[in-house]
């Protein structure tokens, strides 16, 4: 795991984070539920909680789907290529490429079209950035930079959990094995930032 330069994180006073969706996207409840599950994966292992609110401008984390140029100087590139990007804490901006073929149920067992991308997998990854994690070289980790189309990867790996717990500590109710592992120690900050 890695962190953004200078290890930015949400301040301790902000352990109860709110999130909202760009109203113009008019996302269905089914899509919103995918994000709810994605947030839950991070709250399971930390002391952070995530609550959806309706006010986009007042939310700590603001999620939107955009196509091509969308105002942050990092235009999306159409189907595949870059899928999404997110900003370091405490910016809270999380952008997804609106031109991707986002799949909700993530059932790729019967062979997926080359362009199908599992929404929850990418959502879990981008939330990792929102919380302060950079990219990881551990291929099993959620924070590994790439994901093949037609692939679903939503479970946090030990590497992800150690990284996020180094920033925010562990959820006292988390019984996973990773909490007993010794972190690998201070690392050079790097990873990714937008």
């Amino acid at each position, binding site marked *: 795991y*890695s*962190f953004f*330069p200078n290890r930015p994180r949400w301040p301790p006073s902000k352990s109860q984070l709110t999130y909202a969706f760009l109203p113009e996207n008019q996302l*269905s409840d*089914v*899509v919103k539920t995918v994000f709810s599950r994605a947030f839950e994966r991070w709250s399971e292992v930390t002391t952070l909680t995530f609550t959806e609110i309706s006010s986009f401008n007042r939310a700590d984390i603001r999620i939107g789907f955009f196509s091509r140029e969308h105002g*942050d*100087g*990092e235009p999306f590139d*159409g*189907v*595949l*290529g*870059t*899928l*999404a*990007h*997110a900003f370091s804490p405490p910016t809270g901006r999380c952008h997804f490429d*609106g*031109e*991707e*073929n*986002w*799949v*909700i*149920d993530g*059932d*790729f067992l*019967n062979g*997926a*079209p*080359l*362009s*199908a*991308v599992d*929404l929850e997998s*990418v959502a879990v*990854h*981008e939330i990792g*950035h929102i919380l302060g994690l*950079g*990219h*990881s*070289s*551990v*291929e099993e980790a959620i924070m590994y*930079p*790439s*994901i*093949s*189309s*037609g692939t679903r990867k939503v479970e946090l790996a030990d590497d992800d959990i150690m990284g996020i717990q180094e920033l925010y500590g562990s959820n006292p109710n988390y019984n996973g094995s990773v909490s007993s592992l010794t972190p690998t120690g201070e*690392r*050079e*900050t*790097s*990873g*990714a*930032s*937008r």
Partner: protein
Amino acid sequence: HFFPNITAIPSSLIPNTTIWAAFSNLVGCKKGQKADGLPKLKEYFQYFGYLNTSYSDFSDEFDDSLEIAVKTYQLNFNLNATGQIDAETIKRIVVPRCGNPDIVNGTSAMHPGKPSANSTIHTVAH
């Protein structure tokens, strides 16, 4: 585009090729060589932090900077760090990915091992 499952994706939305597929033509390319697709590959590596933001030689020549960038990329993705564009490296490069860079403001910490001294890259965060 949201789909409840993969079978709901209409064939008209499934592209014949992907944005980075053309990089496959660069397999075997190494320092000192020239190739048509190298300017685009250099853009790719700069976008993801492997080439300095001040790097501006987007010619078709495989130069020292690109070799270092390829080597660092290979280290980060647990590939054989040869600095040459081999099939395994291209296979990884063309996979869809997060748009956040892998390297910002210095050496990459993506790889758990120590990066080589000449893999230090300086980029500026957006």
